[in-house]
């Protein structure tokens, strides 16, 4: 007989794994990815492929040759996910060299400088996006008009609703018939994916609901105060990267708070910051900045927002 194995309890495991979660999110992103191919055609495919391949390559290269790690970490799906999310935040006519630069920043600076998976302070995909947005504001904010299936860098561009363009009908916003980054356009596809993640228990409802709710309430109040100047809440919810950010970027495990209480505070703050940046900031879209700012606050939130300890409920009631 073989040697018995001994270990401390528990002796069974729930069969959950990092890979299951990472690829679960990737599956949840599929509908939105298909929508982006539908609207932006070839350009979307090129951007997506470049971003994913570049992210996986940089992760492998840095962990293998710079950090000297023997264990292969690219199969855990986190680099693939970063690649997809980064692509979702880019316009479909972005030249390849800019995408590769963004991927290098996302993986190299955003993730690996901190020690790799689980150690990063900022969401790597967002770090990459914000880096590109600041470095290449023109390229990053000239979005092609949907429907040009065979065009890539030569696609015709137009301003987006948030950038002062004409506001399309709510149904167009829902399905994605508007200009924008790859993954931002179809709110419906994103919400379907989000429902999938909630069903598979990959994420909890706290962060997406608190962000979307806060944006709806805050922009609704502004709209009631002055319908001329401010956008109506439904349009606010459906334009820009709000749904993408709320469901996929802000819910990133590594950079969001651990307790439910903390997650609600984080979500509400992101919502408020987004509305503030959108309406009074220099950039038309504030989602990425809001998330990055709150990422920085996550350790602080973790420190102060502890989950309710067992037994505390009664103690408070007794007082």
């Amino acid at each position, binding site marked *: 007989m073989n040697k018995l*194995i001994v270990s401390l*309890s528990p002796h069974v495991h729930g069969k*959950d794994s990092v890979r299951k979660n990472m690829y679960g999110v990737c599956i949840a992103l599929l509908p939105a990815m298909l929508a982006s191919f539908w609207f932006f055609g070839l350009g979307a495919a090129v951007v997506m492929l470049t971003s994913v391949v570049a992210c996986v390559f940089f992760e492998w290269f840095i962990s293998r040759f710079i950090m000297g790690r023997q264990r292969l970490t690219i199969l855990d799906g986190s680099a693939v996910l970063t690649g997809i999310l980064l692509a979702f935040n880019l316009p479909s006519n972005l030249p390849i060299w800019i995408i590769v630069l963004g991927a290098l920043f996302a993986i190299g600076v955003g993730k690996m400088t901190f020690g790799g998976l689980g150690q990063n302070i900022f969401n790597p995909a967002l770090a990459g996006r914000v880096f590109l947005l600041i470095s290449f504001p023109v390229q990053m904010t000239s979005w092609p008009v949907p429907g040009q299936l065979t065009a890539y860098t030569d696609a015709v561009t137009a301003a987006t609703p948030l950038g002062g363009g004409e506001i399309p009908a709510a149904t167009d916003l829902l399905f994605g018939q508007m200009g924008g980054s790859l993954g931002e356009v179809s709110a419906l596809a994103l919400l379907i994916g989000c429902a999938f993640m909630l069903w598979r228990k990959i994420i909890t409802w706290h962060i997406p609901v608190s962000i979307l709710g806060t944006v709806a309430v805050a922009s609704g109040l502004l709209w009631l105060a002055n319908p001329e100047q401010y956008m109506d809440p439904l349009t606010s919810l459906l334009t820009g990267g709000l749904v993408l950010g709320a469901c996929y970027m802000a819910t990133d495990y590594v950079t969001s708070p651990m307790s439910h209480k903390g997650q609600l505070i984080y979500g509400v703050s992101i919502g408020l910051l987004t509305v503030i940046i959108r309406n009074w900031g220099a950039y038309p879209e504030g989602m990425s900045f809001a998330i990055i700012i709150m990422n920085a606050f996550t350790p602080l939130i973790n420190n102060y927002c502890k989950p*309710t300890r067992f037994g505390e409920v009664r103690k408070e009631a007794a007082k």
Partner: protein
Amino acid sequence: MKTFKIGGVHPEENKLSAGSPIREAQLPKQAVFSMFQHIGAPANPVVKKGDEVKVGTLLGEAGGFVSAPVYSSVSGKVSKVDVALDASGLRRMAVTVDVEGDEWEESIDRSETLVKLADRPELDGKTIVDKIKSAGIVGMGGATFPTHVKLCPPPGKVAECVIVNAVECEPYLTADHRLMLEHPEEILVGLQLVMKAVGVTKGYIGIENNKPDAIKLMTEKAAQYPKIEVVPLKVKYPQGGEKQLIDAVIGRQVPAPPALPIDTGAIVQNVGTCFAIYEAVMKNKPLIDRIITVTGKSLMQPSNLKARLGTPFSQLIDECGGLPEDTGKVIGGGPMMGKALLGLEVPMTKGSSGLLIMRQDEAKRAETEPCIRCAKCVSACPMGLEPYLLAKVSELRDWDAAEHEDIPSCIECGSCQFTCPSHRPLLDYIRLGKSTVMGIIRARSAK
């Protein structure tokens, strides 16, 4: 349906032996009685090599108030009073008896007739507690805390109700389930004895909803006693934890340590303990045997055995079809909180609720990956702690931080590690931190 409020997980149930009736295990050739079968001071051996003993003869007397005596479960000759490997993985003092025949002490009533509380009106609380104390009864769910200590609340604390723990939330184990199906009346009498001993009038029996037959039978039988209520509970681990059960049944939460469960007014007893109390008080039988589930996916016959304490585990496995070829791990207890055994010649003790044989592929832990801070452990923790943080600070030996994060509240249920997608050994480190911090706290209060 009722359940506890914070956290919890739902492991695969795998109750393979739920349908197999309890059968009597054979007598061992040699029985080993550890003096460390309970929490607290060890028992002191009172026999020496060469002594003749019968079933029910005292082998070791209690070593203090928080302690319990040990009785022989076999008849024969004492062959050794020396250290022996026990289920805790340590070599500790034990009495070894070579079995000859099966002769019982005459004081023990071996008849099957049911004795109800109404038949023995002369019993008062003190007599019952004394009987329980001298019979060596301990918590039989696995914690092995001496029962008589629980029945003597510290001054100023008043018991309001007794809760019978019939949850059996550990996967695989079915010993309590079978006991309820086969001896419901005895359990109810045992519960009444506990209620009388602590002077309360309300009794609950908490049963998880995955045992509908037991809920039905117990509800039927309890109908004759208006003060006893059967409470079906939603299936969720670790509902069998004392604090979680009190929360689930009467909706009160035990405050953080050093508060005790009695602070909520509830006294929790396991089903097996109730049965043992019945036997001790009504039949004058000390704790010498118990029901144990011997189970495993590749075991030929997963069964529930009524076995004498001190029987080596290897014999119990033989009675269930022998040790399978692909065995990777043998666990004393359930898969969530049981202890992996270092060898099969270890004797069964008062707290052995199960013996689980795991295949090699099940036994090996998966490779550890970095923590991705998914917070699943935080959601799963039934005590509202942050396991990822506790494990980290324990790994870094930052005991002050561990104490500040309430590490002593951990009940070591293993929900965090069960749910961790990175397969991190969270509980290994938390245990390390908890034991160190508890030591620091004890040293501080001793000053």
